[in-house]
């Protein structure tokens, strides 16, 4: 699997520049693209989330703001310009900093969270060959980078000098650190079976065999554990205790407004995107068409359904479905309490994950003995 950076280097090699200088110049293209993806993703996802919420609650959601005179559908999907109007509002809002806050840290926090989300995108593949840099430790890198955000959250909570914020950030730290473990253990199954940390290799294994979720009954359970854990990792209901609107006002974001708050929002939706893509890549066949659920003998290079370009659509539809499910969770369930959240992680998920790890190893061993 070649990465985007490699292809760009090849493309611009005619300039004859030194490779390291060329790398620095070329890197701006994927960087800007990632930023664009984050912004577009947040804009669309916020609109869709509001609409999904509204329909589940028998409401209509935003219906008034149009885009260039076009309002969208009259009856249900109106108000398509709402998020853009909201974004403009957020950018032009007064930047309020509390008097007794630690001003430097308070400014720093949103950027750390943003960088955490931004850097993760480097290893996230959007399709075959469409990954900024093809790490051979991709899974590990994504896990490491997605937990950088928690530092930002702790800084945000501490620097706000607000007791609610502090509570929120402490809860966030405990929650995110705990839920890293079931996530890691679930991803480890794929690594165990495939024998590689590279996301491209994992998809390649699925192309040759079947979707990883159907590898064995244990990976089926592992997928759900993984998915619920990433919902917790991204602080969304029913695991939104760090923000817990009815308890902690807005948790660690209480004192933030305007542009800084917009960055938090951007990062939250970017994180949703990342974890959905990772879930679809590792468990749901990534950019493979659904015809590869089980290997029925159709050649995978069948260009109509599989390939680098159409792969984007497959991967995105899988990821967007998972994002929809996250929204679905949010507008259905109440919120867990702190200790119940920890109970779920340490007493339900982690024992199941360890059992999964054990049984998948056995499965592989027996399979190796009998089916090969």
């Amino acid at each position, binding site marked *: 699997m070649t990465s985007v950076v490699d292809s760009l280097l090849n493309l611009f090699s005619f300039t004859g520049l030194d490779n390291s200088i060329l790398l620095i110049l070329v890197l701006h293209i994927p960087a800007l693209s990632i930023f664009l993806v984050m912004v577009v993703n947040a804009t669309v996802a916020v609109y869709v989330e509001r609409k999904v919420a509204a329909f*589940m*609650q028998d409401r209509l959601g935003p219906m008034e703001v149009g885009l260039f005179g076009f309002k969208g559908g009259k009856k249900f999907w109106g108000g398509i310009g709402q998020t853009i109007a909201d974004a403009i509002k957020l950018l032009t809002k007064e930047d309020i900093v509390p008097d007794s806050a630690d001003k430097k840290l308070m400014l720093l926090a949103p950027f750390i969270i943003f960088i955490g989300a931004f850097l993760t995108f480097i290893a996230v593949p959007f399709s075959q060959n469409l990954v900024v840099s093809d790490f051979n430790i991709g899974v590990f890198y994504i896990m490491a980078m997605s937990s950088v955000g928690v530092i930002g959250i702790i800084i945000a909570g501490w620097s706000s000098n607000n007791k609610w914020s502090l509570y929120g950030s402490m809860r966030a730290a405990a929650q995110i650190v705990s839920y890293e473990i079931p996530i890691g253990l679930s991803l480890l199954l794929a690594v165990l079976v495939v024998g590689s940390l590279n996301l491209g290799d994992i998809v390649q294994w699925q192309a040759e065999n079947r979707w990883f979720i159907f590898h064995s009954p244990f990976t089926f359970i592992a997928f759900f554990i993984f998915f619920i854990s990433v919902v917790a990792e991204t602080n969304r209901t029913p695991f*939104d205790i760090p923000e817990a609107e009815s*308890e902690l006002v807005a948790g660690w974001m209480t004192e933030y407004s305007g542009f800084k708050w917009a960055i938090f929002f951007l990062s939250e939706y970017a994180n949703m995107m990342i974890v959905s893509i990772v879930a679809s890549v590792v468990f749901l066949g990534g950019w493979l068409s659904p015809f590869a659920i089980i290997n029925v003998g159709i050649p995978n290079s069948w260009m109509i359904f599989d390939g680098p370009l159409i792969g984007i659509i497959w991967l995105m539809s899988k990821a967007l479905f998972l994002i929809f499910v996250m929204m679905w969770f949010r*507008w*259905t369930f109440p*919120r867990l*309490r702190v200790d119940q959240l920890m109970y779920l992680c340490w007493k339900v998920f982690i024992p199941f994950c360890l059992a999964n790890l054990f049984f998948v190893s056995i499965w592989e061993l027996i399979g190796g003995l009998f089916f090969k």
Partner: protein
Amino acid sequence: MYKVLDKSIIGADEMVMNMGPQHPSTHGVLRLKIVTDGEIVSHIEPIIGYLHRCFEKHCENLSYEQIVPFTDRCDYLAAMHMAHGYSIAVEKLLGIEELPERVEYIRVILAEFQRIASHLIAVGVFGLDVGAITPFTWTLRDRERIIDLFESVTGSRLLYNYIWPGGLAHDLPPNFIQKANDFLNYFEPQIEEYNNLLTTNKIFIERSADIGVMPVDVAINYGVSGPTLRGSGVPFDLRKDEPYSIYQKFDFDVPVGEGLMGTVGDCWDRYYVKVLEMKESIKILKQALNSIPEGDVKAAIPKKIRPKKGEIYSRYETARGDLGLYIRSGGKNMPSRLKMRSPAYCNLSVLNEISAGWMISDVISVLGSLDIVLGEIDR
């Protein structure tokens, strides 16, 4: 309940948190001073008075008719109940024994509709407090239909000034019975939906069952009443025990908390009693709507309300509990003293007793299950 650690071991200290008056889930302008040790709350002090309007003193300068709109504003979620309770008190003071049958029927019908509307808010907001937003909008959607009914009857949607001492402001609109029956047919299946979405939800049960348990003796010592008391398993309902108006004519049960999901008297029981009470209200409404007689609703309204010297204490079962009204008349057209025993005030006082030792999240659950209205607490 959680044990607070021995502070001397870890050198931890307590932190005083200030919840409210601007807080998403204090149900108005209530301020809670919470002493916490980490997530665990060791003491709560509710501080009230942010919505104080001198209701009782104000009443001493208003004629008896003019007080009615102000009683509406006490418990703004159950305005019909407050006006009904006040009217009953003034009628007792005036010595009016018998009202036209139709007046009583209309009063009971509207009061039961109001009970459903108020409990819908309580149920939805409790869901909101534990983090579920969808039940709240669903309950508000259904409450809206009741309010539409009220608008067609009284002309306003929240504060009605419809039940007057001695009668009603005017009669029902022509097609009211039909519309009310339509609503009841629509509403009954909705309760099942709430149960499926919220009541039996595992997370919701985890958040409310076994939490904030209020034993019977604590409840009675603090003067708790209404659904909050019945949640603890005491079948005390003024509609049954001291029937006023014409409640003795109707057949209905008094639901009590049974500890289905945990202990008797926990948050879940207090919540579920309200759901069951809505069903009982539907029962009463069906009987009343079928047998409503004809009559003149203004026949018994006194031309001038000027009671003789004397005093009266009257009780009424509102959606939140036992509303007591003490009125002393000095022989003028204004009361010389009016005292209101508001149910939510007494219900709130038990907060520290039942939620100390739980987590911050549980304090919110307990507060939501007590179903307070600040307009009535502060008056």
